[in-house]
């Protein structure tokens, strides 16, 4: 196991089943997994765990993903953590808004397999 795969990935996802599948697949790659189930807790978990990458859903209970992204990018301690939007929304305006707020990528869940996700995470971390 190389050092890259020991990094922590924060998954912000309210759907329990999707969250557990994604976590299981990324754990298989050797990443440490942190989870947040809503927008309110996402920032706190990010501050506590200092993840190497954040997978962020957009439609979340309470504070939505855009607000969470904005908060992350405003926080000096975690603003450099790459945030990949991982959502089933995906209108052009959603993608544009996420990019403007500082997301490095926008993945539409349904268009990817978990193998693709694992590869994307690896590709993205290798760019950091």
């Amino acid at each position, binding site marked *: 196991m190389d050092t890259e795969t020991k990094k922590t990935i924060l998954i912000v996802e309210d759907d329990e089943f999707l969250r557990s599948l*994604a976590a299981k*697949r990324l754990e298989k790659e050797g990443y440490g997994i942190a989870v947040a189930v809503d927008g309110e807790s996402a920032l706190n978990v990010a501050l506590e765990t200092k993840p190497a990458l954040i997978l962020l859903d957009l439609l979340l209970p309470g504070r939505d993903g855009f607000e969470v992204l904005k908060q992350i990018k405003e926080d000096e301690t975690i603003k450099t953590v790459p945030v990949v939007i991982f959502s*089933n929304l995906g209108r*052009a305006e959603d*993608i544009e808004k996420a990019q403007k707020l500082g997301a490095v990528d926008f993945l539409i869940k*349904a268009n990817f397999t*978990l193998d*693709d996700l694992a590869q994307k995470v690896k*590709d993205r971390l290798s760019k950091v």
Partner: protein
Amino acid sequence: MRAATIIWYYVILAMVVVTSLIFVDFSDLQRTVQLILILALVLLIANPILMVWISGGGENRLRQIFGSADVELQNLNAELETQVTKLMQETDHLQEVDKNKSEFVSMTAHQLRTPLSAIKWTFHMIMNGDLGPVTTDQRSFLEKGYESSEKVISVVNDWLNLDYLEANKKKYQFVFTDICELIDGVVFEFNPRTREKNLALVVERPKSNIPLVEVDPIKFSMIMENLIDNAVKYTPNNGKITITVNDDKINGREPAVEVGVADSGIGIPKAEQERLFQQFFRSSNVAATTPRGSGLGLFIVKNLVEGHGGTVHFESEEGKGTKFIITIPLKQKKV
């Protein structure tokens, strides 16, 4: 008295006209004089008749006529203003409905995609043996389930793209853009899929720099996504996809950029080529080999390329491959 005056007018002018008609030759000049005289006659006749009519109460009638016409005009004007206000309200309402429809389509797509993601991921994990060993029979059933989920996802995506196309057909936000950078971004997104099929996806650029091109970056990316998606879908494992970007410097044509997407895929049967850009059209060999796709991708490409003032065409040979070539002007024409 007035009646007598009128009669005298009649008599004198009739005499003038008749005399001119009888005694004068019909040269051009004389014809002109005759016409003037006839005109004068008409005026002279009309004038006293009008005076008699007015003095006999016609003035009131005129006032009545013009008065009622004025009221009618005012009514028409008011009605017109009401109609304009109504039309403006209806336009606002339609825009609101359109916006709500797009919101509804987006949210419904989201609600559909979420359980579809769960189904797709689960099939994929079991197929991969992540949850324990599977038999060959089990795998073939799982593959069918996985393909079915892919097909529904593809329909939902096309549905979203069509809605986007409809809602944004006149909303292009042109920006001078480095299209090579945009293409690189799109290609990056395809890495997992090309790796899965062991496809070589290569971007060939010319030695000289490509100038910035005035495109709508989101829509240009959609064009490239659709073209590369088709190439990936319809190229067998271990095949090659080549993307070329070139300055289109043909004399007499406006400066443009030419982007090609060539694959070593299954090609398009000759007899079906002319229907390729039609909505919902899928060629017979494509429908036989892959269950994905609803026949909207190239229709969307053509619409978006034309929205950029460009053109799209292709060369294809069945069994050997297809090359799509889009040409987009460097600068958009100012409307």
